[in-house]
C-alpha cells in the first residue's frame, strides 16, 4: 500500500543551548526495515525521532529520503505517520474523525475516506467504535486508534515514540505482536523508540543502542543480545554479573581467559585485549547451570544467600568465598544457606574492556 521508500539516510546533531543532545547521530535505514532506537531516558532517542518528524529543527546535519533532502520540509509535507506514547488523540473528535484526520486534510472524497477509515479500523481490530470519543476508550483501544490514524495516510515512514509504555504488561505484549504484524503485512518502514530491551529485541530488524546522543552499538537483535560490545550495552541487555579480571590468555578462536584471585573465566572477547590487561567478565543469571564440577574455569562455588521464586524459575544470590555475589536463575528450588556449584558455557561469557562511567558490577 504505502509508497515504498528505498533508503532513509540521516546525520543528526541537536543542541539545546550549550547541551548537545545528539552528536552526529548517523544511520541509513532501508525500505521495509524495522529499526529501534534503544537507550535509557535522556539518551536522545526521542529527540532523534522528533528531528526526523520535523517537529524540531536540526542544529546540524541532514536527512535525505531516497536521495532527496527533506530536513527543510515542514512536518506536514514529509508524509510520515507517528504514534505517540500518550496516544495524542484529538479529544474533541470521534474515533472516525481522528482516523480520518489526515485524509480529510488531503482533500480526499468522502466515500473514499469512509472506506479507508473502515478498512483501517478493521485492520487494528476496532470496528464498531467509529462514533466513540477517545475519552470513552481504554488505553489499548486508544493506542489502536492512534496507530490507525498514523497508518491510514499510508506513510512513507512510520515513527513510534514509546507507544507501549503507557499500557499494562499483558496488553503491551499483545500490542507488540500487533505492531509487528502490521509492519510486515503493510510493508512499512518503521523507526521505533523504546527503553525496553524486550520490545527492541522482539520487534526489530536492527537495534541501535544509544547513549548520551551517540550510537554505542548497532546490529541485529541477536547481535546486541549475545555479543554486546561494551559494558553499557551488556548492562542494558540483561547481563547482571560483572567480574573484574586480568587477562591471562587470548586464544586463536577469539576466546579470552581472565583471572581474579581463584576465580577463572573464559569467554568471547568483545574487543582485542592484551595479556595482563584489565577486563570484565560478564554473564547473565539465566546462563548459569547447577553443577557438581569442582571449582575451575567458568565454574564457581558459593553459599546461597537469597532465593526468590518466580513461578517457573528461582532467582538466587550466591556469595562466593571471595565475598563477591553471583546472581543466578535456576529451574529447580535450592535451599538457602546450601553450598552449590554453578557452571557457565564459554559462549555465554563475554569478556569486555573496562569502561569509565556507565555500568558496573
Amino acid at each position, binding site marked *: 500500500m504505502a509508497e515504498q521508500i528505498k533508503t532513509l539516510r540521516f546525520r543528526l546533531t541537536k543542541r539545546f543551548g550549550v547541551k548537545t543532545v545528539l552528536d552526529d547521530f548517523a544511520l541509513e535505514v532501508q525500505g521495509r526495515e524495522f529499526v529501534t532506537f534503544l537507550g535509557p531516558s535522556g539518551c536522545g532517542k526521542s529527540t532523534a525521532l*522528533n528531528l526526523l*518528524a*520535523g*517537529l524540531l529543527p536540526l542544529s546540524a546535519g541532514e536527512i535525505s529520503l531516497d536521495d532527496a533532502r527533506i530536513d527543510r520540509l*515542514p*512536518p*506536514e509535507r*514529509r508524509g*510520515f*505517520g*507517528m504514534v*505517540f506514547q*500518550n496516544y*495524542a*488523540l*484529538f*479529544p*474533541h*473528535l*470521534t474515533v472516525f474523525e481522528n482516523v480520518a*484526520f*489526515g485524509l480529510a*486534510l*488531503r482533500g480526499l472524497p468522502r466515500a473514499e475516506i469512509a472506506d479507508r477509515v473502515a478498512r483501517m479500523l478493521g485492520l487494528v481490530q476496532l470496528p464498531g467504535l467509529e462514533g466513540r*470519543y477517545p*475519552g470513552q476508550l481504554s488505553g489499548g483501544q486508544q493506542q489502536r486508534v*492512534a496507530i490507525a*490514524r*498514523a497508518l491510514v*495516510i499510508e506513510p512513507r515512514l512510520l*515513527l513510534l515514540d514509546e507507544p507501549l509504555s503507557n499500557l499494562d504488561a499483558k496488553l503491551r505484549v499483545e500490542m507488540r505482536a500487533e505492531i509487528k504484524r502490521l509492519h510486515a503485512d503493510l510493508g512499512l518502514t518503521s523507526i521505533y523508540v523504546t527503553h525496553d530491551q524486550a520490545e527492541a529485541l522482539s520487534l526489530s530488524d536492527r537495534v541501535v543502542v544509544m547513549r548520551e546522543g551517540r550510537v554505542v552499538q548497532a546490529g541485529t537483535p541477536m547481535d546486541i543480545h549475545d555479543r554486546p560490545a561494551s559494558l553499557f550495552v551488556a548492562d542494558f541487555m540483561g547481563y547482571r554479573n560483572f567480574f573484574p579480571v586480568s587477562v591471562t590468555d587470548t586464544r586463536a578462536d577469539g576466546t579470552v581467559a581472565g583471572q581474579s584471585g581463584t576465580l577463572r573465566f573464559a569467554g568471547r572477547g568483545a574487543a582485542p585485549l592484551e595479556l595482563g590487561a584489565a577486563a570484565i567478565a560478564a554473564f547473565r543469571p539465566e546462563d548459569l547451570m547447577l553443577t557438581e564440577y569442582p571449582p575451575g574455569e567458568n565454574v564457581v562455588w558459593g553459599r546461597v544467600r537469597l532465593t526468590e521464586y518466580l513461578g517457573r524459575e528461582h532467582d538466587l544470590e550466591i556469595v562466593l568465598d571471595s565475598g563477591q555475589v553471583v546472581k543466578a536463575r535456576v529451574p529447580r528450588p535450592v535451599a538457602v544457606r546450601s553450598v552449590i556449584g554453578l557452571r557457565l558455557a564459554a559462549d555465554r561469557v563475554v569478556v569486555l574492556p573496562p569502561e569509565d562511567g556507565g555500568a558496573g558490577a
Partner: protein
Amino acid sequence: MSLRRVRLAPGAGLLWLLPSVLYLLTMFVYPFCYGVYLSLRPVTGDGGLSFGNYLGFLLDPWQARTIWVTAWIAVPNTILTVALALLVAYTMRRGIWLERTITTLLVLPIALGTVLVAEGINGFYGPKGWLNQLLVAAGISDPVRLTRNYTGVMLALFVQHFPFCFLMLLGYISGIDPALEHAARIHGARPWAVFRRVMWPLIAPGAAIAFALVFVMNFGVFPSAVLVGQPAGPTRTIAIAAYQQAFEHNDMSMASAIAVIMGACQLVGLIVVLLLRSRMAATGVATVGAGKR
C-alpha cells in the same frame, strides 16, 4: 496502630459549612435582596411595591440610552480584548524569549488599579500627551483626540482587562498537550489547520469563559468612563446613571433599580455565552485539563 474513622452524625458535616453560608448570606444574599426590595419601592410612590422605577428608567430615553452606550463600549471591547489576548497567548503557548519579563509587563496594569491606569492614559494619549507631542514634532499629524471620549474609555478598558484575559487564556492554552499539535502537523495539517481543527475547538470553552468575565467587567465600567471618557454624553454608561441617581439625586431606590437592570444585562450576556459554550460541548469539545501556569 489502627486509625479509627470518626463517624459524624448525619448532617454534622453541614455544620462546617455554616461559617461560609453565614458569610454569603450577610455579605451577598441579604444586600442583594435588599437592593432588589429597595428598587421596588420608588420614593415618589405610596410606599407599596411597584415597578415604577424600572418603567421610569426604561421609558426615559436619556436614561434608557445608557444601556446601548454601555453595550456599545462593552461588546466591541470584549471582542477586541479576547481576540488580541488569544492571539498573544497562542503565539506564546510554547514559551518565547524573555517570556517572564513580557508576562510581568503585561500583568502590571492589574496591580496598578483603574485610576492610575486612567491617569496614565490621559498623560500618554491626551491632547498634550507624549504621543501627540511626538506626532506633531514629527510633522505627521495634528493632535489626535484620543481621550475624554469613546476611544479613551476603550483604551482604558483594554489596558485593564487584557492582562487578566491573556493570563487566563495562556494558562488554558499551555495546558493543552503539545503532542496533539505535533500529531496534527505530522498527519498533514499546516499551522492554520492545526489551529482551526485542533486547537480552537479545545480553546473555545476557555475563551468563552474569558469572554463572559471580560464582558461583565466591561459592562460595569465606571471609573474609566468618568476619568478618560465623556461622562456627560457619549460615555455615560449605566453605572454612571446609577451613581448619579444615588449620590447626586439621593434616590437610592431608583439607583437600585438601575443596578438591577445592569445586572440583568450582564446576566443576559453571560447566558448567551454559556449557551454557545454548551452547544460546543454537545458537539464533543471536552474540557481539557486546567492550565499549568
